[in-house]
Every structure is written in structure tokens, then in C-alpha cells.
């Protein structure tokens, strides 16, 4: 052991005066160029790209709870781009690329770990859908291929190849699939943004949106009114309620999504594994815990309560996939409120209110999109409302024109 370390071990002095990661709270100003509602990953990422790449720093992020305490803290951190539509694949691939370099960009370790993601097919119809997804992905440069059960067994020797009497017929192997530490993503963006002068105001709830002559002028908060040139909402499960305050509806339904994690064990599972028929996915965190997630609750609810029937269903599927999990102990279980669109794609860009932009409809799949959402939403603001090409397919108006971007098959079983 180096003597330096021993010296500090017995001394009362901390080796160096470390700067606080986030500045101390300040007074809320009466005027900002940009106000971002919601201090989740999407909100702080937007602030980061605005400040760092567009020089727009008179920005406030208003968060009713604490930084990243919403779905950013609750998600199971699956990062992948093996979607079905060309629009989706292009968009999510850009996000994966940004993730790959994020630790360097922040000079802060987000523990990005590219272990590959495997989705299992148990019916011929799913095998056909997977083949299509693999081809679309390859076309856009992604690493996705269809593999047979022998390869599945080789990749995941501990997997039961006949879970619940549903034999594994094939696997969609996405070698770009990854995971990361979700809190670190929010912290990295928040730290970078505040270093450039952005203000993050936690425990500050937006209670109303001020609109005059069809144009947003500011927001009402629990700490007083704030004027703003541009307002962006990025509030996940509360998106439709927030849009209503701005005066327009969103085609969203709020469903709880539940997940859980076991006590840690030695590493045995590298890829993220998901079963399309059992609606269940299992992965091991870098700390060794087993994360278990699955489909949404069976009916809508604005409440992040967890329920026993759903937990029982998830656990029985997970035990079918990895029978020895029945010996494990649960550490935590929780739920988040997700804002679901009917086509399982987000709603991004302009709204009926001028200078009021939306980043919503992120449902059960928005963590992986955090970097690209921040980047494109910042471009939208910086260009004065010119919608970046990558997010044009996700405009709100698509619902009026029946131009949905259907990602249901590529989303429902693994987020």
C-alpha cells in the first residue's frame, strides 16, 4: 500500500478540497431565455447540449422533486437500437453512439457496459418479425442478427431453453445492446450543464403554464412566476397533465411499469436477456444484482404503487427462464408512471403553443434515448423552432394524419 494512502488513512485532513458536483441552490430569477420543466435525464440533457454546444446558458431546469428522481431513477437501463421502423432505428442508433462516448464527454464514469442484448422468439411469427428487425438494423449499420438455439445456449449457458413449455426457436442478438448507471447519466448531464451556467432548481414544481395569444410567456411555480422565451416540457409520466396546463391535449395514457432487483451474486450473466412470449427480461448489474422487468400494468393509473399480482407474474417468468433464481432474495421493487403512446414511439418537437416544445410519450423506453433527446431538443431551441430531421417523424401532428411510427412489437417485451 502506498505510504501516501496510509498517511491520509490516519489523518483528519481530506487529501484535496473536492469541488461540489452541483452548485448550491440560488434564488429563482424572474426571467430566463429557456425554462425546462422536469429535471430527469431528458431535461438536464437538453440543458447540457443547449449550454455546451449552442452557448445558450440563461437556462433554468425546474424539478418538482430531486434530480433524476422520476423514471430516470426507476428504469432498468436497457440501451439498444434494434427497433423495427427505419425512423426508429436511425434515431436510437444515434443515441447509442452518443452513449458510447458519454463517460469521456463528462469526464465522469457512467459505467456504460456494452454486453449485448438477446431477445428470445418462441413462435414462428416472432421469428419472422425478428428476421425483419435484423435486416432493417443491418441496413442502418447496427449490429443485430438472428441466431439459432445452439448459439443462444452458447451465449447464455444458464438459460432454460424451454421456459414455461415455450421452446426457444431463435434469438435476436443485438451486440450493440448495453446498460449504464442511470443516476450517473443524470448527474453527468446536470454537472456539465451547471458548469456552463445553467441553473438547476430542485423542489420547484411548475403549477401552470402561462400562454398569451397562442405563445408561451412563462410558468407559474411553487416559488413564484418565471418569464421565459422558450419553455420545454420533459416530465415523462405527467406529460399529458402538463400539456393540459399549456392548453392542449396529448394522445397519451399513463400506465404504471414495475421492476425489481435481487440481492447481488457473483457475475454469471453477461448479456441482457428478454423473452418475447413471457414478457419478461432479466439482466445482471455490474454490482451483481439481478434486475427483473417486464410488461406494463394491465390498466392505466396515475400512481407508482407496485402490486403483488404483477410481481408474482414477473417472478414466475424470470424463474422459468433461469430456474435457480428461485433461490434468490429480493432487495427492492418499485414502479414508475409511464406516458404511453398508441404506436410506442415518442412525441417530440413543436406543440400547438408557440415556443412551447414537447419531449413526451417516452413510455417504457426513454432512458436509452436520453442523449439524443437532449441533443435534438437543444437543436430545436437553438434554431428557433426548426425541427431536426431525426425527430420529424415523431411530431404530435402525426396522430391527426394517421402517420404513426409503429414500434409496438419492438418495445412491449423489452424496454
Amino acid at each position: 500500500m502506498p505510504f501516501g494512502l496510509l498517511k491520509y488513512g490516519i489523518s483528519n485532513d481530506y487529501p484535496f478540497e473536492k469541488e461540489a458536483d452541483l452548485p448550491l441552490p440560488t434564488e429563482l430569477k424572474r426571467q430566463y431565455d429557456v425554462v425546462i420543466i422536469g429535471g430527469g435525464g431528458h431535461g438536464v440533457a437538453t440543458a447540457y447540449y443547449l449550454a455546451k454546444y449552442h452557448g445558450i446558458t440563461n437556462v433554468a431546469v425546474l424539478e418538482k422533486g430531486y434530480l433524476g428522481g422520476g423514471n430516470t431513477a426507476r428504469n432498468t437501463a436497457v440501451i439498444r437500437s434494434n427497433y423495427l421502423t427505419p425512423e426508429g432505428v436511425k434515431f436510437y442508433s444515434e443515441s447509442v453512439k452518443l452513449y458510447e462516448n458519454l463517460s469521456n464527454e463528462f469526464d465522469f464514469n457512467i459505467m456504460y457496459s456494452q454486453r449485448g442484448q438477446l431477445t428470445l422468439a418462441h413462435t414462428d411469427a416472432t421469428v419472422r418479425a425478428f428476421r425483419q428487425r435484423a435486416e432493417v438494423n443491418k441496413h442502418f449499420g447496427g449490429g443485430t442478427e438472428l441466431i439459432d438455439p445452439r448459439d443462444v445456449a452458447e451465449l447464455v449457458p444458464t438459460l432454460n431453453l424451454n421456459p414455461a413449455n415455450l421452446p426457444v426457436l431463435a434469438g435476436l442478438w443485438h451486440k450493440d445492446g448495453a446498460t449504464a448507471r442511470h443516476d450517473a447519466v443524470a448527474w453527468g448531464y446536470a454537472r456539465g450543464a451547471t458548469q456552463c451556467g445553467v441553473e438547476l432548481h430542485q423542489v420547484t414544481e411548475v403549477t401552470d403554464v402561462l400562454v398569451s395569444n397562442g405563445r408561451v410567456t412563462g410558468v407559474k411555480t411553487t416559488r413564484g412566476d418565471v418569464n421565459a422565451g422558450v419553455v420545454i416540457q420533459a416530465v415523462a409520466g405527467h406529460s399529458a397533465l402538463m400539456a393540459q396546463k399549456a392548453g392542449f391535449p396529448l394522445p397519451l395514457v399513463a400506465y404504471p411499469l414495475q421492476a425489481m432487483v435481487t440481492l447481488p451474486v457473483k457475475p454469471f450473466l453477461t448479456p441482457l436477456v428478454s423473452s418475447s412470449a413471457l414478457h419478461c427480461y432479466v439482466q445482471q448489474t455490474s454490482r451483481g444484482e439481478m434486475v427483473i422487468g417486464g410488461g406494463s400494468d394491465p390498466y392505466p393509473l396515475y400512481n407508482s404503487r407496485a402490486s403483488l399480482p404483477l410481481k408474482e407474474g414477473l417472478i414466475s417468468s424470470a424463474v422459468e427462464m433461469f430456474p435457480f433464481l428461485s433461490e434468490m432474495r429480493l432487495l427492492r421493487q418499485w414502479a414508475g408512471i409511464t406516458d404511453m403512446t398508441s404506436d410506442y414511439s415518442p412525441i417530440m418537437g413543436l406543440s400547438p403553443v408557440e415556443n412551447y416544445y414537447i419531449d413526451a410519450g417516452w413510455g417504457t423506453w426513454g432512458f436509452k434515448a436520453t442523449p439524443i433527446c437532449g441533443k435534438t431538443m437543444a437543436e430545436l431551441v437553438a434554431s428557433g423552432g426548426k425541427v431536426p430531421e431525426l425527430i420529424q417523424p415523431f411530431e404530435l401532428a402525426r396522430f391527426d394524419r394517421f402517420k404513426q411510427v409503429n414500434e409496438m412489437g419492438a418495445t412491449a417485451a423489452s424496454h
Partner: protein
Amino acid sequence: MKIMTCPLNGPRNISEFVYGGQVKAMPDHQNVSDTDWAHHVFYEKNDVGIVLEWWMHSPSSFWFIAERHNATDEIIRTYPADQLFKQRVDFVANEGES
């Protein structure tokens, strides 16, 4: 166990029921604009409070209406659909359309 009362079968475990969406007034399908129809199909009321919903008891395929609080999950009451819907809607394709 969460219990829902089926108007036909009485109190049952909620796992026997399937949610069928909010009850919405349907616009006249013969004379509605595409945008209004899209709104009817894709938009629901998004307040927090008591909502009117379609539910089905799957073993008996019986559809009915429930009043439920969408934040507390309290089921206020359930009743057969004919209490709200008195008239049958017949869909007829317009002449000349295929």
C-alpha cells in the same frame, strides 16, 4: 387481492377482467372529418380523478362500465352498458366506397 364487481357475475378477482379503454362519445361516423375521427380514436380524457371505463369479465365475455379513480384505483361502481347506451349503432359503408 383486488376485487372488481361484475354486474353479471358479482365480486371477482381483478385478474379475471380486461380493461377496454375510456368511454367516449362517438362522433357521427358518416359526417366526421378525418382529424376529428383521429381525435376520437387516439385521445382520451387526461385528468386525474374519476373516469368512466369499459371493462370485460373474460370468462363470461361480459362487457360493462366501471367508474374508477385513476390515481387511487378505487372502483366507485360498475353497471351494465345498457344504462348508458340505449341505441345500437350500425356501421354502413358509403355507396361507391370499397
